């Protein structure tokens, strides 16, 4: 038995649990909704979520209740909830599990969020590749609609919430909330300039909240067990609740592990994920998805909560923890991530569009032992001129693998360049030049 209580993964860990409506109801599913809709004022639901300290699980970690509170109070037109299920951050695979194994938990959270913000329509924007997940969600929506949990006049309360699944079509940037909205409107997924924020000018220019799958899945539990219960888990006051940590890379048992925020990386990797795959020691890890800077074994006792990881020079991000063993080339690892960012840059902002190409070319040159010492300055200079100079956070994300590996493993870059220089010395043309 796990020594920590499972919240989000609890149902699905029961033998025989299929995620059907009947299974979900047997575990107390939709009770939070029954006890909330029409019985607790929507503003009080928002207050409860604020008190719980729930912060967005998609990456940015913005307080959920506060985000809801930004919606204009007196606006009479339609409002929208968009569930961000475009899980595409390398190292992250928790939302997929939450959707495929317990879809009703998410749907209940969506209806509760819609009730709190006064939205009658919700779209689940799921990444296009997750065909199975979208089918499972559509089936669950059908079940919930037939049972009166979704649709017009939910449970006789007069409240209407409709939910639709919208499949993306393969673009990492659509996980950025404004790019998601553009994509949902049938356009290229290019991020919008903020402000205005989605809270006032979101989907179809209407007030909109965009929340991650894991964030929404927490809502039924917060409402049924109370904000104090949620706030007592993890690292209060700023990192409350559990987190589904995704562990990948060189560990014995990669997978999703739900643990209270504040667990150390050492415990997560060595107790839960079974430790290192081989006998080689841990060399590096990424604590929060591909956008988070790399950390070293010196950071193994850093607590996995928003503040502690930030203080260590990285970020908790999406909760995707990737572990690398001794012997892994950090230049290669950074290059692999850089190739991802180069491929996925949407092209809207010149620093990111041009810079990612330049970065990946320079990195490939160094990795192929054709680099020069000057390339390290070029990389640093490029990174400084990309970060903070783009419409969305993609620019900051794409420089983090290079900046952090240059910081901690600069000698590996230097070694590759020295090898390149040594190889150049014995080139016939080099010899001729010297004569």
């Amino acid at each position, binding site marked *: 038995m796990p020594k920590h209580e499972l919240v989000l993964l609890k149902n699905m860990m029961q*033998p025989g649990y299929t995620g059907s409506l009947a299974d979900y109801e047997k575990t107390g599913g939709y009770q939070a909704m029954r006890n909330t809709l029409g019985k607790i004022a929507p503003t009080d639901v928002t207050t409860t979520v604020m008190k719980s300290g729930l912060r967005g699980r998609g990456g940015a970690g913005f307080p959920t209740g506060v985000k809801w509170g930004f919606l204009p109070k007196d606006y009479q037109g339609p409002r929208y909830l968009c569930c961000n299920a475009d899980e595409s951050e390398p190292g992250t695979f928790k939302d997929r599990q939450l959707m495929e194994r317990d879809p009703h938990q998410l749907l209940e959270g969506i209806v509760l969020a819609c009730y709190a913000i006064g939205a009658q329509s919700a779209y689940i924007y799921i990444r296009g590749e997750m065909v199975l997940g979208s089918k499972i969600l559509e089936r669950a929506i059908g079940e919930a609609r037939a049972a009166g949990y979704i649709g017009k006049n939910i449970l006789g309360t007069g409240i209407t919430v409709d939910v639709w699944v919208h499949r993306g079509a393969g673009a990492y940037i659509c996980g950025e909330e404004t790019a998601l909205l553009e994509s949902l409107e049938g356009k290229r997924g290019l991020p919008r300039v903020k402000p205005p924020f989605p809270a006032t000018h979101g989907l179809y220019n209407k007030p909109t909240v965009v929340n991650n799958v894991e964030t929404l899945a927490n809502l039924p539990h917060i409402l049924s067990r109370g904000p104090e219960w949620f706030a007592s888990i993890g690292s209060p006051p700023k990192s409350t609740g559990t987190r589904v940590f995704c562990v990948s*890379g060189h560990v014995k048992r990669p997978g999703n592990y739900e643990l209270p925020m504040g667990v150390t990386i050492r415990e997560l990797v060595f107790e839960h994920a*079974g430790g290192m795959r081989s006998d080689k020691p841990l060399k590096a890890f990424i604590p929060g998805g591909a956008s988070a800077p790399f950390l070293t074994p010196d950071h193994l006792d850093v607590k996995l909560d928003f503040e502690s990881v930030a203080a260590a020079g990285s970020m908790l991000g999406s909760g995707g923890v990737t572990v690398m063993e001794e012997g892994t080339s950090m230049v290669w690892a950074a290059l*692999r991530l850089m190739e*991802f960012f180069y491929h996925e840059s949407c092209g809207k902002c010149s620093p990111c569009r041009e810079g990612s190409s330049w970065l990946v070319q320079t990195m490939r040159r160094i990795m192929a032992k054709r680099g020069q010492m000057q390339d390290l300055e070029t990389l640093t200079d490029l990174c400084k001129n990309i970060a903070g100079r783009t419409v969305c956070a993609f620019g900051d994300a794409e420089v983090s693998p290079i900046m952090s590996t240059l910081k901690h493993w600069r000698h590996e870059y230097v070694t590759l360049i020295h090898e390149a220089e040594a190889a150049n010395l014995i080139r016939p043309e080099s010899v001729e030049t010297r004569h």
Partner: protein
Amino acid sequence: MEHPGRHLSEEKWGEKVLKEKYGKEIEEILSRYPVKRSALIPLLYLAQREHGYVTEAAMTEIAGLLKLTPPQVYETATFYTMLNLKKVGTHHIQVCKSLMCALVGSDTVIGWIKTKLGIAPGETTADGLFTLTAVECLAACGTAPMMQINDDYYERLTEEKVDKILADLRTNGTSPLKSGPYMWPESAKPGA
């Protein structure tokens, strides 16, 4: 690495088949959104299901259905990697090459498929059965290395498993080795 379906086909414009064949489904898709253009990606998927890729004719027809210009449809279609603008093989093998899969052997998987099928990423076998693409992260890092073939995920790949999957697809058009829902970590199976 070139994506095999990223260039426009030679199809001619003007064909109108989607409305006649999928009229009811199109109406249902349109009913989900207050603004017609939101139905664009779902309709492009419909066109892809019909033809195996998105033809120019289909894009023109969709433009008409949504009261958009063909360039508006085209500019959206060209942005997304899952919308193929050129024919791909019956089985589109997409192997994840991102860091998390690469750490545990995706390059070997790609190399193995290259050897078995005689095609490099971006190419299709002569019989039109398989197209191989190296793609970026597919949210299955915990069960890496992995690949997606058409709608299905295949995870925790080994050379033997890849061989079996390719053989199954050749003979039956499907394989029981496809995975999902989400695979558990070895230690976390319910009831284990």
